[in-house]
């Protein structure tokens, strides 16, 4: 597919008329609607509401619990019985699954600690509890556990002994290369319906991720969770993590924006903004922070100090990227298009040339993910794994095509504001 065709396709999808449904989704992404918000939701819902569109996009944006709660609070009688029933069922299923995940998180933390593995759970149940006050109010399908790099292999053995299957097997040099360049392993258990993600850093080498695991280990905090005192990221680190995690994924989920906004509100008395700005600046994550603040404001008032909000509004690139994320929220795109768009977005969300250069350099030369196509296309003995550095650019060219890659970055840098 050429860049021009791609551009035209996305325009046609985004210009279709679902204006009321999209506004409804944006409003219902928030944790608690204001009175004015409830009145607006009530106005937007009517006999002509396309409920399959609303529910489908709410599921994609992981805001089904919020949609259910907000519709119930704003206009319960106007929601068709079948839709209300589906939302109620999904709310209940999500709550029960999240309780199971919470239990598994506690169990795994205890298991790791009993085996002398320090662990910091983050996102998932802890974030839901902190931000929404209850794990039922957030959709999540995995557990993220940070361990020290030297404990990764041990943690993997423990999870395998617990019946979890790693997403792939690693050995020898490929394993050490993977540990050096990547940031997490995934594990699944048959029938469990969730993923355990063991991290040893917060982003892979080619993301030049600005929140460092070493710093987090040095200054982590604690969070009470149902009678358990668990390690967790301090609020400034968690804030920057959420900002850059969103940027890494092109902010293409409303839940990430809503969660961040709510987090800033719940933690308003605890977030040291001066320190946060200092850390963001020194890590090259200032633009990422500004984008996140601007996006949060799109959903309603925020608890960010006025001077910082003003600084964010004065950052032209941050404004453009925030606008672009909002414009893309309901754009349908295939997987590879979305991945390329996310990558380009993340690259532009980093303000320092040296970080951008590192991202480009390591992206082009990274050793492939063990499940990536590079491995099946070009099988190479472990001892020759260095050759993958050379093969990745060839695979990227083969998969995406030079015109498309060129169009993606040209559109990103030259056709400012027009690129979807």
């Amino acid at each position, binding site marked *: 597919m050429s860049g021009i065709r791609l551009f035209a396709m996305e325009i046609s999808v985004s210009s279709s008329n679902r204006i009321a449904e999209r506004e409804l989704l944006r409003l219902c992404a928030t944790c608690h609607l204001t009175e004015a918000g409830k009145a607006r939701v009530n106005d937007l819902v009517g006999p002509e509401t396309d409920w399959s569109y609303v529910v489908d996009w709410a599921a994609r944006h992981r805001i089904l619990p919020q949609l259910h709660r907000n519709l119930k609070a704003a206009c319960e009688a106007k929601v068709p019985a079948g839709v209300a029933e589906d939302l109620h069922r999904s709310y209940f299923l999500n709550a029960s699954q999240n309780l199971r995940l919470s*239990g598994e998180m506690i169990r795994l933390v205890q298991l790791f600690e009993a085996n002398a593995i320090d662990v910091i759970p983050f996102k998932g149940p802890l974030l839901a509890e902190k931000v929404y006050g209850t794990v039922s109010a957030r959709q999540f399908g995995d557990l993220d556990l940070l361990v020290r790099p030297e404990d990764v292999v041990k943690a993997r053995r423990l999870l395998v002994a617990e019946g979890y299957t790693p997403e792939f097997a690693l050995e020898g040099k490929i394993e050490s290369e993977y540990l050096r360049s990547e940031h997490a392993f995934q594990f699944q258990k048959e029938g469990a319906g969730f993923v355990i993600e063991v991290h040893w850093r917060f982003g892979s080498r080619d993301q030049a991720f600005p929140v460092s695991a070493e710093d987090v280990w040095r200054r982590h905090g604690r969070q009470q969770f149902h009678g358990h005192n668990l390690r967790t990221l301090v609020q400034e680190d968690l804030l920057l993590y959420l900002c850059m995690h969103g940027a890494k994924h092109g902010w293409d989920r409303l839940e990430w924006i809503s969660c961040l906004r709510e987090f800033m509100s719940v933690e308003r008395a605890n977030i040291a903004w001066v320190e946060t700005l200092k850390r963001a600046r020194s890590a090259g994550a200032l633009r990422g922070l500004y984008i996140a603040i601007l996006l949060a404001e799109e959903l309603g008032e925020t608890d960010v100090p006025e001077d910082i909000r003003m600084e964010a509004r004065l950052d032209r690139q941050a404004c453009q990227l925030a606008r672009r994320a909002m414009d893309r929220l309901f754009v349908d795109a295939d997987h590879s298009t979305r991945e390329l768009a996310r990558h380009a977005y993340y690259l532009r969300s980093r303000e320092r040339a040296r970080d951008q250069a590192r991202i480009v350099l390591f992206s082009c030369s990274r050793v492939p993910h063990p499940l990536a196509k590079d491995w099946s296309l070009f099988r190479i003995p472990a001892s020759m794994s260095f050759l993958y550095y050379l093969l990745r650019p060839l695979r990227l060219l083969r998969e995406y095509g030079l015109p498309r890659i060129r169009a993606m970055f040209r559109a990103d840098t030259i056709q400012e504001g027009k690129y979807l």
Partner: protein
Amino acid sequence: MITGAAIAADATVTVNSQAVACDLEGEVVILNLESGVYFGLNAVGGDIWNYIQTEHTVEDIIQHLLQEYRVERSRCEAEVTALLHTMSTRGLVKIESR
């Protein structure tokens, strides 16, 4: 641990660390991590659950409910005792006599 129906007013009640709970439209759902069984509490039961997230005596719970709801003391006492007994046998709370 008290397992019988008789629970002293000054007995302390704490939530078992093997129980995790979440709010569900005004009610509370609790999962016992050991047994894997879910339990549901109505709004009043949920209120009690939230109240005992910090240690309280049975008398504290009764006083709390008498302030919140219009209910006779004898009925409140009987229902609280029955609920605590059930939750204790299901491994959701610990009740300890002084």
